[in-house]
């Protein structure tokens, strides 16, 4: 057991791998070369189309103990993860490691597959019911490993996470294995999240419900990476990609926070021609993006780019000429998907381009401002998005770390008072993102500036914004609620939270009791 740079206790090993303690957001020096990719060769006149998932599993030689991977672009509407795991179960496969880019409520059947031994390890991401299930402890053979979008890409390139078979849900593909997520009968947005899987996995299987004539272009997944193509009836429901997060908030509290956020952006010094920002989904982020657009219009500012998850809100800004480009890794609504197809200034990017620590450039590093949410923030500005205050692992990291580390000004927007469970705490239950990369916390009771950003504090004060100490905001909110009990953690490690560079920033332990 060692303590990392944030004082969190980290075991020497996570599963069979040595754990490197987190040493600072940009402390790790990367050297050497990336892992080699499997050598593949294509016979002439090959037919890659297979009749079923089972046939593909067979052809790939998938066997017990191997690793399979998936993307999450269909979000709550995904069918492919359940489809593949059900097939694996029918074929008697056991002890599989799954490596999804994210999981959602719809993937609850994985719980059954864990109980029956089909799945024994999870790396990548974890959300909702599966997280709640493994939080009970003793469910997986090794602790789950959670990575950010960029961290997952990096781990595959580094050879840390080896994938045997990548199953790639593709709304459209040709018989030779070129595939896309933005066309077809049921588009879900870019599927480039798995471009790295496709190149590094021993075998790559494209699963589509819309087989197009060769060549299907432009493509996110290329023929040279694809071993097999399987056609199925259904891969996902695009109506569900919005996950209900695309309503502008009506809550007066959230609107107040959104307005204060935009006031802070205006006062920050970054708000001028060429300004860039990350919007994202969720009622509050959408409201902030809308108000920001209004202010940019008033001030006649043209932004350089907005970063997605793409939404109609960003697309409208692009069409009105308020931003010169959208850089987008995923789509949060169908307007964004249509725009990706039609507008050359709506640029698709994979996590390797936008978020990879081990690379010569990340799009997030070019961001002036980003608005991110949080489950908890502590007085050192550390942020938790993974666990609930009761210690249950309920959410993945998404791009939180990558965006927070990259943006010149990272703003956490959260209500200081959210029911009876305080969001501002002395010490976060789990650290997802370290305080050193969080610049501002915006609440309905004022905004707090990280002490290392005295420049911002001065600018906000000069603009008459309600700058306060985070501790004072916390005290204001806490007067309305009795203290909550805190979980007491045991020794068993449920999951490791990796920082985007592959070091361990925190671990989630099993809850043993209450204090």
């Amino acid at each position, binding site marked *: 057991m060692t303590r990392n740079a944030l004082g969190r206790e980290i075991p020497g090993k996570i599963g069979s791998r040595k754990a490197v303690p987190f040493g600072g957001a940009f402390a790790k020096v990367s050297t050497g070369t990336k892992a080699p990719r499997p050598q593949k060769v294509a016979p002439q006149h090959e037919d890659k189309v297979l009749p079923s998932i089972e046939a593909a599993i067979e052809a790939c030689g998938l066997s017990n103990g191997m690793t399979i991977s998936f993307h999450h672009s269909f979000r709550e509407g995904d069918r492919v993860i359940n489809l593949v795991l059900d097939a694996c179960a029918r074929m008697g496969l056991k002890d599989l490691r799954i490596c999804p880019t994210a999981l959602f409520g719809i993937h609850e059947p994985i719980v059954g597959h864990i109980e029956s031994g089909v799945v024994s390890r999870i790396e990548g991401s974890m959300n909702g019911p599966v997280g709640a299930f493994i939080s009970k402890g003793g469910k997986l053979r090794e602790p789950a490993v959670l990575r950010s979008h960029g961290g997952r890409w990096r781990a595959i390139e580094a050879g840390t996470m080896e994938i045997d078979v990548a199953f790639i849900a593709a709304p459209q593909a040709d018989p030779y294995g070129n595939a896309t997520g933005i066309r077809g009968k049921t588009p879900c947005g870019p599927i480039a999240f798995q471009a790295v899987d496709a190149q590094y996995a021993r075998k790559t299987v494209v699963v589509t419900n819309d087989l197009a004539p060769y060549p299907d272009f432009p493509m996110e997944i290329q023929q040279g990476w694809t071993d097999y193509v399987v056609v199925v009836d259904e891969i996902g429901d695009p109506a569900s990609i919005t996950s209900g997060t695309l309503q502008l908030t009506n809550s*007066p*509290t959230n*609107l*107040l926070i959104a*307005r204060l956020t935009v006031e802070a952006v205006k006062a920050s010094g970054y708000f001028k021609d060429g300004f860039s920002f990350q919007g994202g989904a969720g009622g509050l982020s959408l409201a902030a993006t809308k108000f920001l657009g209004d202010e940019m219009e008033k001030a006649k500012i043209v932004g350089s780019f907005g970063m997605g998850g793409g939404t109609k809100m960003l697309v409208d800004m692009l069409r009105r000429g308020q931003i010169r480009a959208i850089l987008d890794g995923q789509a949060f609504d169908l307007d964004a998907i249509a725009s990706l197809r039609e507008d050359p200034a709506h640029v698709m990017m994979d996590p390797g381009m936008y978020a990879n620590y081990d690379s010569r450039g990340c799009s997030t590093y070019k961001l002036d401002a980003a608005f991110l949410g949080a489950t908890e923030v502590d007085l050192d500005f550390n942020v938790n998005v993974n666990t609930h*205050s*009761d210690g249950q692992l309920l959410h993945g990291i998404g791009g939180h770390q990558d965006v927070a580390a990259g943006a010149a000004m990272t703003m956490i927007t959260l209500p200081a*008072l*959210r*029911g*009876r*469970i305080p969001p501002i705490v002395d010490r976060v239950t789990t650290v997802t993102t370290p305080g050193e990369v969080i610049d501002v916390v915006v609440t*309905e*009771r004022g905004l707090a500036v990280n002490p290392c950003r005295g420049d911002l504090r001065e600018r906000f004060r000069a603009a008459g914004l309600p700058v306060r100490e985070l501790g004072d905001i916390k005290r204001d909110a806490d*007067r*309305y*609620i*009795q*203290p*909550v*009990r805190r*979980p007491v953690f045991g020794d068993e490690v449920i999951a490791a939270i990796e920082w985007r560079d592959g070091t361990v920033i925190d671990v989630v332990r099993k809850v043993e009791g*209450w204090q």
Partner: protein
Amino acid sequence: MEARVGSDAKADCLVVARQAERASVAVATKNRNLLETGIRAVAEGVLDALGKPGVVVEVQDQGALDYVLAARIEAAVRMVLPETKLTRTEQVERAMSDPARPRRSRLYAPGNNPRLLVGIDIHGADCVLLDLEDSVPPGDKTAARVLVRRLLAAVPFPDEVWVRINPLDAGGREDLSEVLEGRPHGVCLPKAESGEGVRELAEELGKVERRLGFGVGSTHIMPIIETARGVLRCEDVAEADERVVVVAFGAEDYTRDVGARRTDDALLFARSRVVAAAKAAGVQASDTVYADLSNDAGLADECARARDLGFDGKGAINPRQIPILHRAFSPSEDELAKARAIVEAAREAETRGLGAVAVDGRMVDQPVLERARRLIKYAETLANGGAA
């Protein structure tokens, strides 16, 4: 006998109370591990303060804050055992407010709706108005009174907080006797129609203030003129008592009462009378609410016209209207610059012994100068956060 208070809406809780041998508490919440202890502590605190009555209390929590929980529990117990009284109450520290302080906005909040009440203090409204009247159904009046009293005691409002009571003979007296303990800065009298009615309220306020040991006269009155009769007699209303610091106009009830459509023309007479009556009595005038939440431009227009008529502020039904109201009822940079130029010119004229003086080609006479001075002083007050 069983009483149910509250709801299963977010930020609320449902409390069921039943008579029993001895007091006990049962708690249901989605986050039992985190929250049960805290909720139980609040419940037991309330039962203690009520003298441990023989009541079983079941709390189903939906994220209610402590004061909401306490209010729901207290109301339920008192409905089961009407004789139950609090054996101790919190002293509320809240100073009387300056009668002439700015009141650009009066934000309405329904008195029995925790989801809308929580955080009502943070939107910067010059006056928050907790409503016990039209927004509270008859069966919920007791629950609303207790909730408003507890909220007043728990929340240190940065600006003014008022309570709109029911008509005195229709629950208003009970409202006062309950909520005045929370020391609101003032009380709104709905459907004010006569000086007599205002004086009756003032007298009642005096009685309760005396009982609670507050300074008699410390609670302001805001009569709301919202009937034909009220409009015709509003000068009596405005002048009826020292406690009246602002007269508000309510268009919804007024148009219904006279059978008018809500147009600017239809309201002009009433609005003008209310302004004149208020100003003759040396108090402020506040315009009616604007109901179309989605139309910010329409609200800004109506604010501009109200200000032109002489109103000092306006009602708001949602916090998002407040910035628009405050912009409209605060002096603009332009107006301030002009006012400063006028005062400066007048000062110069005086030192040089000149009589009349012109600014931008317009004569500055005594009323113009007076108006400019008032505007500058008002802007300073606003910059001071409302303190004169």
